[in-house]
């Protein structure tokens, strides 16, 4: 357990979280591994976890009939994957597939939601961190949408 706590504490997402809060939520986490090519999540499935990627790369995709899987973004070492566990109806909105062998910490969504309800301070700290990630992701997506490298010289 000690080792697992240290793994969490090292990640920038959990850094600065008081040790007792980290211990409180660490029981919701477990180490997981996905082989390259295997699915991590599927659009529409219950979003029962988020992942702290420790190694490898995964693709966030959406399937379009006739066009196959369209890749929206990739996530890699150090990134956080998934926030649907937090927002009702708690279902994955995208497919996620491991592009390389992925090692991650899976944080159980239901377990975390219960902990956040029981301890609002921890809940607030998690919300604050997810708000930051969401904002960064939205900014990045907007810039990606601008298609800056197209032949329209800006």
């Amino acid at each position, binding site marked *: 357990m000690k080792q697992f706590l240290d793994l969490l504490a090292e990640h920038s997402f959990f850094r600065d979280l008081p040790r007792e809060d980290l211990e409180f939520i660490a029981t919701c986490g477990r180490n997981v591994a996905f082989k390259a090519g295997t699915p991590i999540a599927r659009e529409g499935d219950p979003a029962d976890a988020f992942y702290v990627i420790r190694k490898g790369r995964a693709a966030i995709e959406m399937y379009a009939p006739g066009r196959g899987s369209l890749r929206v*973004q*990739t996530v*890699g070492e150090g990134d956080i994957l998934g926030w649907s566990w937090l927002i009702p109806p708690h279902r994955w909105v995208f497919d996620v597939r491991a592009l390389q062998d992925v090692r991650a910490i899976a944080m159980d969504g239901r377990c975390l939601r219960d902990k956040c309800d029981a301890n609002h301070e921890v809940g607030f700290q998690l919300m604050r961190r997810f708000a930051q990630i969401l904002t960064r992701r939205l900014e990045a997506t907007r810039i990606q949408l601008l298609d800056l490298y197209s032949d329209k010289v800006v």
Partner: protein
Amino acid sequence: MSDCLLPTMCTITGRKQDTADVFTLSIDPPDGEFPFEPGQFNMLYIPGVGESAISISGRPAEANKLVHTIRAVGDVTRLLGIRETRERIGVRGPFGTGWPISQAAGKNVVIVAGGIGLAPLRPVIYAIADRRDDYGDVSLLYGARTPADVLYREELLEWKRAGVLDLAVTVDAARSDWSGDVGVVTNLVGRIHSDPAATVAMLCGPEIMMRSTARALLDIGVEEANIAVSMERNMKCATAFCGHCQLGPYFVCKDGPVFFYPDVAPYWQQREF
């Protein structure tokens, strides 16, 4: 060169199509030799059509060959793209300031390029590769539109294989057969593991990309004074005379194109500059 306002006609000695709309020209330099600093640019001239500011993308140690990587976007650059070997084009230069390569000695280097912005940074990589032991960790974070738009593919892989640099390439859009990263180049900043306080960053690409990358680098602790950016403005004379490329108190052609973040950041917040 003797007169900086008068182009010298030079012969094209080589032409390589890098991607669908980007090509690299090798040119016999005026006077046989063409010393330059990485980051500097030339004005390339098609008689009767006009001139374009184009960075030098070749090897600084190879002064007997002048190399430019050009994206065909308009009148001059499209015509440069259909010029054949042995034809001649006009050259004026070199102009402008260079990348802070000597300031980076003894430190880690993070090079962040977007699209054609890799061209002005390639001479930096050549210079670092020639004296690799003078630098700490070196990373190249490169964003392109699609996998087919990735420039200097073989060279990048060779530099990675040889341990010259850590390479991270991301594209804005890709089909599912691309196993690399998808997303903006800013996303890759979090993967830098070197000490940010001892890091010099060099950024070149569309201004929006440089602004957001600079913010991300500041967030991880890179110092403002250690972030260099290459600014692009419409240029005519390239000799700080006509004022076309003015940026606040600066002329990009003479005081730039390479600036440090604290010098240009105030003008990034102002419109119509």
